Protein backbone atom coordinates (compact mmCIF):
# COMPACT_ATOMS: atom_id res chain seq x y z
CA UNK A 1 0.00 0.00 0.00
CA UNK A 2 1.39 3.41 -1.04
CA UNK A 3 0.81 6.66 0.83
CA UNK A 4 1.52 10.18 -0.41
CA UNK A 5 2.99 12.00 2.57
CA UNK A 6 4.49 15.40 3.30
CA UNK A 7 7.52 15.81 5.54
CA UNK A 8 9.19 19.03 6.57
CA UNK A 9 12.84 18.09 6.94
CA UNK A 10 15.41 20.65 8.08
CA UNK A 11 13.07 23.43 6.96
CA UNK A 12 12.39 22.02 3.50
CA UNK A 13 9.16 20.42 2.41
CA UNK A 14 9.27 16.98 0.77
CA UNK A 15 6.44 15.08 -0.86
CA UNK A 16 7.09 11.41 -1.14
CA UNK A 17 5.20 8.19 -1.78
CA UNK A 18 5.98 5.64 0.93
CA UNK A 19 5.03 2.03 1.52
CA UNK A 20 3.04 1.17 4.66
CA UNK A 21 5.75 -1.04 6.10
CA UNK A 22 8.75 1.22 5.41
CA UNK A 23 10.33 2.96 8.36
CA UNK A 24 11.13 6.64 8.55
CA UNK A 25 14.82 5.67 8.65
CA UNK A 26 14.65 3.78 5.37
CA UNK A 27 12.67 6.54 3.63
CA UNK A 28 15.12 9.21 4.83
CA UNK A 29 18.15 7.24 3.72
CA UNK A 30 17.00 5.39 0.63
CA UNK A 31 14.28 7.58 -0.87
CA UNK A 32 15.43 11.05 0.15
CA UNK A 33 19.21 10.55 0.39
CA UNK A 34 19.38 11.98 3.90
CA UNK A 35 22.01 9.65 5.33
CA UNK A 36 23.09 11.18 8.64
CA UNK A 37 20.65 8.94 10.56
CA UNK A 38 22.50 5.63 10.63
CA UNK A 39 21.13 2.11 10.38
CA UNK A 40 22.61 0.43 13.46
CA UNK A 41 20.72 -2.19 15.46
CA UNK A 42 17.28 -1.44 13.96
CA UNK A 43 15.89 -2.46 17.30
CA UNK A 44 15.76 0.69 19.40
CA UNK A 45 18.92 -0.17 21.31
CA UNK A 46 21.70 1.91 19.76
CA UNK A 47 20.23 5.35 18.93
CA UNK A 48 22.34 5.80 15.76
CA UNK A 49 19.13 6.52 13.81
CA UNK A 50 17.93 9.27 16.19
CA UNK A 51 16.14 12.20 14.55
CA UNK A 52 14.07 14.97 16.12
CA UNK A 53 10.40 14.44 15.25
CA UNK A 54 8.14 17.37 16.13
CA UNK A 55 10.65 18.54 18.72
CA UNK A 56 11.33 15.17 20.33
CA UNK A 57 14.18 12.74 19.74
CA UNK A 58 12.98 9.35 18.48
CA UNK A 59 14.52 6.24 16.93
CA UNK A 60 13.63 6.63 13.25
CA UNK A 61 14.04 2.85 12.82
CA UNK A 62 10.95 2.37 14.97
CA UNK A 63 8.71 4.97 13.28
CA UNK A 64 6.72 4.02 10.20
CA UNK A 65 7.33 6.70 7.57
CA UNK A 66 3.59 7.02 6.97
CA UNK A 67 3.06 7.82 10.66
CA UNK A 68 5.28 10.88 10.24
CA UNK A 69 2.99 12.43 7.59
CA UNK A 70 2.76 16.18 8.26
CA UNK A 71 5.60 16.18 10.79
CA UNK A 72 8.64 18.35 11.18
CA UNK A 73 11.91 16.43 11.22
CA UNK A 74 15.40 17.58 12.12
CA UNK A 75 18.53 15.64 11.20
CA UNK A 76 22.24 16.44 11.47
CA UNK A 77 22.18 17.78 7.88
CA UNK A 78 20.18 20.75 9.21
CA UNK A 79 22.49 21.68 12.10
CA UNK A 80 25.03 23.86 10.29
CA UNK A 81 23.66 27.21 9.16
CA UNK A 82 25.16 29.10 6.21
CA UNK A 83 28.45 27.20 6.48
CA UNK A 84 28.76 27.72 10.25
CA UNK A 85 28.75 24.59 12.34
CA UNK A 86 26.28 24.31 15.19
CA UNK A 87 27.90 24.91 18.63
CA UNK A 88 27.33 21.22 19.41
CA UNK A 89 29.25 20.19 16.29
CA UNK A 90 32.08 22.59 17.17
CA UNK A 91 32.20 21.27 20.72
CA UNK A 92 32.29 17.65 19.54
CA UNK A 93 35.30 18.48 17.36
CA UNK A 94 37.04 20.52 20.04
CA UNK A 95 36.64 17.83 22.70
CA UNK A 96 37.52 14.92 20.40
CA UNK A 97 34.08 13.50 21.11
CA UNK A 98 34.13 11.72 17.74
CA UNK A 99 36.17 8.65 16.92
CA UNK A 100 34.65 6.36 14.31
CA UNK A 101 31.72 8.77 14.00
CA UNK A 102 28.95 6.26 13.46
CA UNK A 103 27.05 7.25 16.62
CA UNK A 104 27.74 10.97 16.24
CA UNK A 105 24.66 12.10 14.26
CA UNK A 106 22.40 10.33 16.76
CA UNK A 107 24.33 11.78 19.71
CA UNK A 108 24.07 15.27 18.19
CA UNK A 109 20.31 15.01 17.71
CA UNK A 110 19.69 13.70 21.24
CA UNK A 111 21.93 16.47 22.59
CA UNK A 112 20.23 19.16 20.47
CA UNK A 113 16.77 18.05 21.61
CA UNK A 114 18.00 18.26 25.21
CA UNK A 115 19.46 21.78 24.84
CA UNK A 116 16.40 23.04 22.94
CA UNK A 117 14.27 22.08 25.92
CA UNK A 118 16.75 22.49 28.77
CA UNK A 119 19.55 25.02 28.07
CA UNK A 120 21.23 24.42 31.48
CA UNK A 121 21.40 20.64 31.83
CA UNK A 122 23.15 18.99 34.75
CA UNK A 123 25.54 16.14 34.05
CA UNK A 124 22.76 13.76 35.13
CA UNK A 125 20.32 15.40 32.65
CA UNK A 126 22.88 14.86 29.88
CA UNK A 127 23.38 11.22 30.84
CA UNK A 128 19.63 10.58 30.88
CA UNK A 129 19.20 12.31 27.50
CA UNK A 130 22.01 10.27 25.92
CA UNK A 131 21.21 6.92 27.61
CA UNK A 132 19.64 5.68 24.38
CA UNK A 133 22.75 6.40 22.28
CA UNK A 134 25.52 3.84 22.33
CA UNK A 135 29.13 4.75 21.53
CA UNK A 136 31.65 1.93 21.32
CA UNK A 137 34.72 4.20 20.95
CA UNK A 138 34.84 7.23 23.19
CA UNK A 139 33.78 5.99 26.61
CA UNK A 140 31.21 8.83 26.67
CA UNK A 141 33.29 11.16 28.86
CA UNK A 142 34.28 13.45 25.99
CA UNK A 143 30.76 13.47 24.60
CA UNK A 144 29.33 14.59 27.93
CA UNK A 145 32.04 17.27 28.23
CA UNK A 146 31.23 18.48 24.70
CA UNK A 147 27.53 18.81 25.45
CA UNK A 148 28.28 20.75 28.66
CA UNK A 149 30.64 23.08 26.79
CA UNK A 150 28.16 23.63 23.95
CA UNK A 151 25.46 24.53 26.49
CA UNK A 152 27.75 27.10 28.11
CA UNK A 153 28.76 28.62 24.75
CA UNK A 154 25.19 28.76 23.45
CA UNK A 155 24.12 30.53 26.61
CA UNK A 156 26.99 33.06 26.32
CA UNK A 157 25.93 33.88 22.72
CA UNK A 158 22.37 34.79 23.75
Amino acid at each position, binding site marked *: *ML*HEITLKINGEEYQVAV*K*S*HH*TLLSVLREQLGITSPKRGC*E*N*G*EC*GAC*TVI*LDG*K*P*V*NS*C*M*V*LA*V*EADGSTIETTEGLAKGGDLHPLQEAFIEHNAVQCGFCTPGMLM*SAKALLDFNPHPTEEDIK*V*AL*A*GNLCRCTGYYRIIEAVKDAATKMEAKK
Partner: protein
Amino acid sequence: MRPFDYYKPKDFQEAIALLSQEGKKTFPLAGATDLVPMARDERWLPDIVVDIKALPGLREMKLTDEGLYVGAAMTMNEIAASPLVKSKWDVLAQGASSVGHNQVRNRATVGGNIATSSPAADTPPSLLVLEAIVVARGPEGERRIPITEFFLGPRRNALKKGEIIVGLILPNPPEGAVGSYHRISRRHGADLAIVGVAVLAYPKAEGFGWRVALGAVAPTPIRVPQAEATLSAAPGKPDEAVISQAIQEAVAASKPIDDIRATAKYRREMIATLMRKAVEDVLEKL
Protein backbone atom coordinates in the same frame (compact mmCIF):
# COMPACT_ATOMS: atom_id res chain seq x y z
CA MET B 1 9.74 -6.67 7.00
CA ARG B 2 6.78 -8.36 5.33
CA PRO B 3 4.50 -5.77 3.67
CA PHE B 4 1.22 -4.82 5.37
CA ASP B 5 -1.48 -2.21 4.90
CA TYR B 6 -1.69 0.84 7.15
CA TYR B 7 -4.79 2.84 8.07
CA LYS B 8 -5.28 5.80 10.41
CA PRO B 9 -9.01 6.06 11.11
CA LYS B 10 -10.52 9.02 12.94
CA ASP B 11 -13.51 7.19 14.42
CA PHE B 12 -13.93 4.02 16.44
CA GLN B 13 -16.41 2.41 14.07
CA GLU B 14 -13.92 2.35 11.22
CA ALA B 15 -11.02 1.33 13.49
CA ILE B 16 -12.93 -1.57 15.02
CA ALA B 17 -14.23 -2.72 11.62
CA LEU B 18 -10.65 -2.78 10.28
CA LEU B 19 -9.34 -4.63 13.31
CA SER B 20 -12.19 -7.17 13.36
CA GLN B 21 -11.66 -8.50 9.84
CA GLU B 22 -11.81 -12.28 9.79
CA GLY B 23 -8.92 -14.18 8.30
CA LYS B 24 -6.52 -11.24 8.61
CA LYS B 25 -3.86 -10.61 11.22
CA THR B 26 -4.72 -7.14 12.44
CA PHE B 27 -2.70 -5.03 14.87
CA PRO B 28 -3.42 -1.68 16.48
CA LEU B 29 -0.43 0.69 16.36
CA ALA B 30 0.35 3.44 18.86
CA GLY B 31 4.04 4.05 19.66
CA ALA B 32 5.30 1.31 17.28
CA THR B 33 8.18 0.47 19.64
CA ASP B 34 6.93 -3.12 20.00
CA LEU B 35 5.25 -3.56 16.63
CA VAL B 36 8.05 -2.43 14.30
CA PRO B 37 10.83 -4.58 15.84
CA MET B 38 8.47 -7.58 16.13
CA ALA B 39 7.28 -7.19 12.53
CA ARG B 40 10.84 -6.78 11.31
CA ASP B 41 11.87 -10.02 13.05
CA GLU B 42 8.71 -11.57 11.55
CA ARG B 43 7.63 -12.74 14.98
CA TRP B 44 4.44 -10.77 14.34
CA LEU B 45 3.08 -10.94 10.79
CA PRO B 46 0.48 -8.21 10.45
CA ASP B 47 -1.70 -7.99 7.34
CA ILE B 48 -3.30 -4.79 8.55
CA VAL B 49 -1.94 -2.16 10.93
CA VAL B 50 -4.40 0.36 12.35
CA ASP B 51 -2.86 3.54 13.78
CA ILE B 52 -5.10 4.45 16.72
CA LYS B 53 -3.48 7.79 17.62
CA ALA B 54 -6.12 9.89 15.83
CA LEU B 55 -9.08 8.27 17.63
CA PRO B 56 -11.03 10.57 19.97
CA GLY B 57 -9.78 10.64 23.56
CA LEU B 58 -6.70 8.51 23.06
CA ARG B 59 -4.32 11.45 23.44
CA GLU B 60 -6.20 12.97 26.38
CA MET B 61 -5.47 13.15 30.07
CA LYS B 62 -8.09 14.61 32.41
CA LEU B 63 -9.48 14.56 35.93
CA THR B 64 -12.92 13.00 36.26
CA ASP B 65 -15.21 12.15 39.19
CA GLU B 66 -13.59 8.72 39.29
CA GLY B 67 -9.98 9.85 39.30
CA LEU B 68 -7.55 10.45 36.47
CA TYR B 69 -8.34 9.37 32.92
CA VAL B 70 -5.22 8.66 30.85
CA GLY B 71 -5.72 8.11 27.12
CA ALA B 72 -4.11 4.91 25.84
CA ALA B 73 -1.83 6.75 23.40
CA MET B 74 -0.23 9.03 26.00
CA THR B 75 3.52 8.47 25.88
CA MET B 76 5.77 7.42 28.73
CA ASN B 77 7.52 10.80 28.74
CA GLU B 78 4.18 12.65 28.77
CA ILE B 79 3.04 10.57 31.74
CA ALA B 80 6.38 10.83 33.57
CA ALA B 81 6.36 14.65 33.25
CA SER B 82 2.68 15.25 33.94
CA PRO B 83 1.96 17.32 37.08
CA LEU B 84 -1.49 15.67 37.17
CA VAL B 85 -0.02 12.17 37.27
CA LYS B 86 2.58 13.23 39.82
CA SER B 87 -0.06 14.80 42.08
CA LYS B 88 -1.67 11.56 43.33
CA TRP B 89 -0.46 8.81 41.02
CA ASP B 90 3.28 9.46 41.18
CA VAL B 91 4.13 5.75 41.31
CA LEU B 92 2.92 5.56 37.68
CA ALA B 93 5.16 8.51 36.73
CA GLN B 94 8.06 6.57 38.28
CA GLY B 95 7.15 3.44 36.31
CA ALA B 96 6.80 5.40 33.06
CA SER B 97 10.16 7.13 33.52
CA SER B 98 11.82 3.69 33.91
CA VAL B 99 10.76 2.47 30.47
CA GLY B 100 13.57 2.12 27.92
CA HIS B 101 15.39 5.34 27.13
CA ASN B 102 14.40 8.85 26.11
CA GLN B 103 13.78 8.09 22.43
CA VAL B 104 11.61 5.12 23.33
CA ARG B 105 9.75 7.05 26.05
CA ASN B 106 8.87 9.71 23.48
CA ARG B 107 7.00 7.09 21.47
CA ALA B 108 6.00 4.15 23.70
CA THR B 109 2.50 4.50 25.09
CA VAL B 110 0.87 3.31 28.28
CA GLY B 111 -1.82 1.47 26.31
CA GLY B 112 0.82 -0.33 24.29
CA ASN B 113 2.83 -1.19 27.39
CA ILE B 114 -0.09 -3.16 28.80
CA ALA B 115 -1.46 -4.44 25.45
CA THR B 116 1.88 -6.12 24.66
CA SER B 117 1.55 -7.74 28.11
CA SER B 118 5.21 -8.50 28.62
CA PRO B 119 5.62 -9.79 32.19
CA ALA B 120 8.62 -7.43 32.44
CA ALA B 121 6.83 -4.22 31.42
CA ASP B 122 7.49 -1.26 33.72
CA THR B 123 4.06 0.35 34.14
CA PRO B 124 1.98 -2.70 35.20
CA PRO B 125 3.34 -2.98 38.78
CA SER B 126 2.41 0.68 39.34
CA LEU B 127 -0.98 0.23 37.66
CA LEU B 128 -1.61 -2.82 39.87
CA VAL B 129 -1.00 -0.93 43.13
CA LEU B 130 -3.11 1.97 41.82
CA GLU B 131 -5.88 -0.54 40.96
CA ALA B 132 -6.27 0.96 37.49
CA ILE B 133 -9.21 0.12 35.27
CA VAL B 134 -8.63 -0.60 31.58
CA VAL B 135 -11.24 0.90 29.27
CA ALA B 136 -11.51 -1.20 26.10
CA ARG B 137 -13.71 -0.79 23.05
CA GLY B 138 -14.53 -3.42 20.46
CA PRO B 139 -17.25 -4.84 18.21
CA GLU B 140 -19.51 -5.33 21.25
CA GLY B 141 -19.04 -1.82 22.61
CA GLU B 142 -17.10 -0.44 25.53
CA ARG B 143 -16.21 -2.39 28.67
CA ARG B 144 -14.05 -1.97 31.72
CA ILE B 145 -11.48 -4.51 32.84
CA PRO B 146 -9.81 -4.20 36.25
CA ILE B 147 -6.04 -4.31 35.71
CA THR B 148 -5.92 -7.22 38.18
CA GLU B 149 -7.92 -9.28 35.63
CA PHE B 150 -6.26 -7.98 32.48
CA PHE B 151 -3.04 -10.02 32.26
CA LEU B 152 -3.50 -13.73 31.49
CA GLY B 153 0.06 -14.86 30.73
CA PRO B 154 3.21 -13.82 28.89
CA ARG B 155 1.94 -11.65 25.99
CA ARG B 156 -1.63 -12.76 26.68
CA ASN B 157 -4.43 -10.55 27.98
CA ALA B 158 -8.19 -10.22 28.27
CA LEU B 159 -8.62 -8.26 25.01
CA LYS B 160 -10.67 -9.93 22.28
CA LYS B 161 -10.18 -9.70 18.53
CA GLY B 162 -11.02 -6.23 17.30
CA GLU B 163 -10.83 -4.72 20.78
CA ILE B 164 -8.51 -1.83 21.55
CA ILE B 165 -7.50 -0.12 24.76
CA VAL B 166 -9.01 3.36 24.79
CA GLY B 167 -7.57 4.51 28.07
CA LEU B 168 -7.04 3.86 31.74
CA ILE B 169 -8.92 5.11 34.75
CA LEU B 170 -6.69 5.65 37.76
CA PRO B 171 -9.07 5.79 40.73
CA ASN B 172 -8.36 8.40 43.40
CA PRO B 173 -6.00 6.64 45.81
CA PRO B 174 -6.80 6.65 49.54
CA GLU B 175 -6.00 9.97 51.25
CA GLY B 176 -2.29 10.39 51.97
CA ALA B 177 -1.17 7.52 49.74
CA VAL B 178 2.48 7.47 48.63
CA GLY B 179 4.18 5.08 46.27
CA SER B 180 7.56 3.97 45.03
CA TYR B 181 8.75 1.94 42.03
CA HIS B 182 12.18 0.33 41.86
CA ARG B 183 13.57 -1.76 39.04
CA ILE B 184 16.82 -3.27 37.94
CA SER B 185 18.04 -4.03 34.42
CA ARG B 186 21.32 -4.99 32.76
CA ARG B 187 21.74 -1.64 31.06
CA HIS B 188 20.31 1.55 32.48
CA GLY B 189 18.11 2.57 29.58
CA ALA B 190 16.95 0.35 26.73
CA ASP B 191 16.72 -3.02 28.45
CA LEU B 192 13.68 -4.67 29.98
CA ALA B 193 13.44 -4.99 33.75
CA ILE B 194 15.00 -8.02 35.45
CA VAL B 195 12.75 -7.28 38.43
CA GLY B 196 10.36 -4.37 39.12
CA VAL B 197 8.66 -3.66 42.44
CA ALA B 198 5.90 -1.12 43.11
CA VAL B 199 4.78 -0.30 46.65
CA LEU B 200 1.94 1.97 47.75
CA ALA B 201 0.89 2.76 51.32
CA TYR B 202 -1.70 5.02 52.95
CA PRO B 203 -2.76 5.88 56.50
CA LYS B 204 -5.78 3.96 57.85
CA ALA B 205 -7.57 3.84 61.22
CA GLU B 206 -4.74 1.90 62.82
CA GLY B 207 -1.45 1.80 61.01
CA PHE B 208 -1.23 1.80 57.25
CA GLY B 209 -2.69 -0.04 54.29
CA TRP B 210 -0.10 -1.52 51.92
CA ARG B 211 -0.16 -2.68 48.32
CA VAL B 212 2.79 -4.43 46.67
CA ALA B 213 3.17 -5.55 43.03
CA LEU B 214 6.02 -7.34 41.26
CA GLY B 215 7.06 -7.33 37.60
CA ALA B 216 9.22 -9.77 35.61
CA VAL B 217 9.09 -12.56 38.21
CA ALA B 218 5.95 -14.48 37.15
CA PRO B 219 4.03 -15.19 33.91
CA THR B 220 2.20 -11.88 34.51
CA PRO B 221 2.84 -8.87 36.73
CA ILE B 222 1.37 -9.80 40.14
CA ARG B 223 0.10 -8.39 43.42
CA VAL B 224 1.36 -10.23 46.51
CA PRO B 225 -1.62 -10.33 48.92
CA GLN B 226 0.09 -12.16 51.76
CA ALA B 227 2.96 -9.68 51.94
CA GLU B 228 0.44 -6.84 51.78
CA ALA B 229 -1.58 -8.34 54.66
CA THR B 230 1.53 -8.71 56.81
CA LEU B 231 2.57 -5.09 56.27
CA SER B 232 -1.00 -3.82 56.75
CA ALA B 233 -1.47 -5.76 60.02
CA ALA B 234 1.32 -3.84 61.76
CA PRO B 235 -0.18 -1.45 64.32
CA GLY B 236 1.91 1.47 63.04
CA LYS B 237 4.81 1.70 60.65
CA PRO B 238 6.05 -1.86 60.09
CA ASP B 239 9.30 -2.66 61.90
CA GLU B 240 12.24 -4.65 60.59
CA ALA B 241 10.76 -8.03 61.58
CA VAL B 242 7.49 -7.29 59.78
CA ILE B 243 9.27 -5.99 56.67
CA SER B 244 11.52 -9.07 56.52
CA GLN B 245 8.53 -11.36 56.84
CA ALA B 246 6.63 -9.49 54.10
CA ILE B 247 9.66 -9.68 51.81
CA GLN B 248 9.90 -13.44 52.36
CA GLU B 249 6.21 -13.78 51.52
CA ALA B 250 6.61 -11.72 48.35
CA VAL B 251 9.57 -13.84 47.24
CA ALA B 252 7.58 -17.01 47.99
CA ALA B 253 4.66 -15.72 45.85
CA SER B 254 6.92 -15.11 42.84
CA LYS B 255 7.61 -17.67 40.12
CA PRO B 256 10.68 -16.32 38.35
CA ILE B 257 12.38 -18.08 35.46
CA ASP B 258 15.96 -18.28 34.19
CA ASP B 259 16.30 -16.32 30.96
CA ILE B 260 18.79 -14.32 28.96
CA ARG B 261 18.54 -11.40 31.42
CA ALA B 262 19.00 -13.18 34.75
CA THR B 263 18.61 -16.41 36.67
CA ALA B 264 15.57 -17.17 38.80
CA LYS B 265 17.80 -17.20 41.88
CA TYR B 266 19.12 -13.71 41.13
CA ARG B 267 15.59 -12.48 40.53
CA ARG B 268 14.49 -13.77 43.97
CA GLU B 269 17.41 -11.94 45.60
CA MET B 270 16.52 -8.78 43.72
CA ILE B 271 12.85 -8.92 44.75
CA ALA B 272 14.11 -8.75 48.34
CA THR B 273 16.54 -5.90 47.65
CA LEU B 274 14.15 -3.79 45.57
CA MET B 275 11.13 -4.37 47.80
CA ARG B 276 13.15 -3.26 50.81
CA LYS B 277 14.22 -0.10 48.97
CA ALA B 278 10.65 0.64 47.88
CA VAL B 279 9.21 0.04 51.37
CA GLU B 280 11.89 2.25 52.93
CA ASP B 281 11.18 4.95 50.34
CA VAL B 282 7.49 4.85 51.14
CA LEU B 283 8.08 4.87 54.91
CA GLU B 284 10.16 8.01 54.51
CA LYS B 285 7.37 9.74 52.61
CA LEU B 286 4.46 8.57 54.78
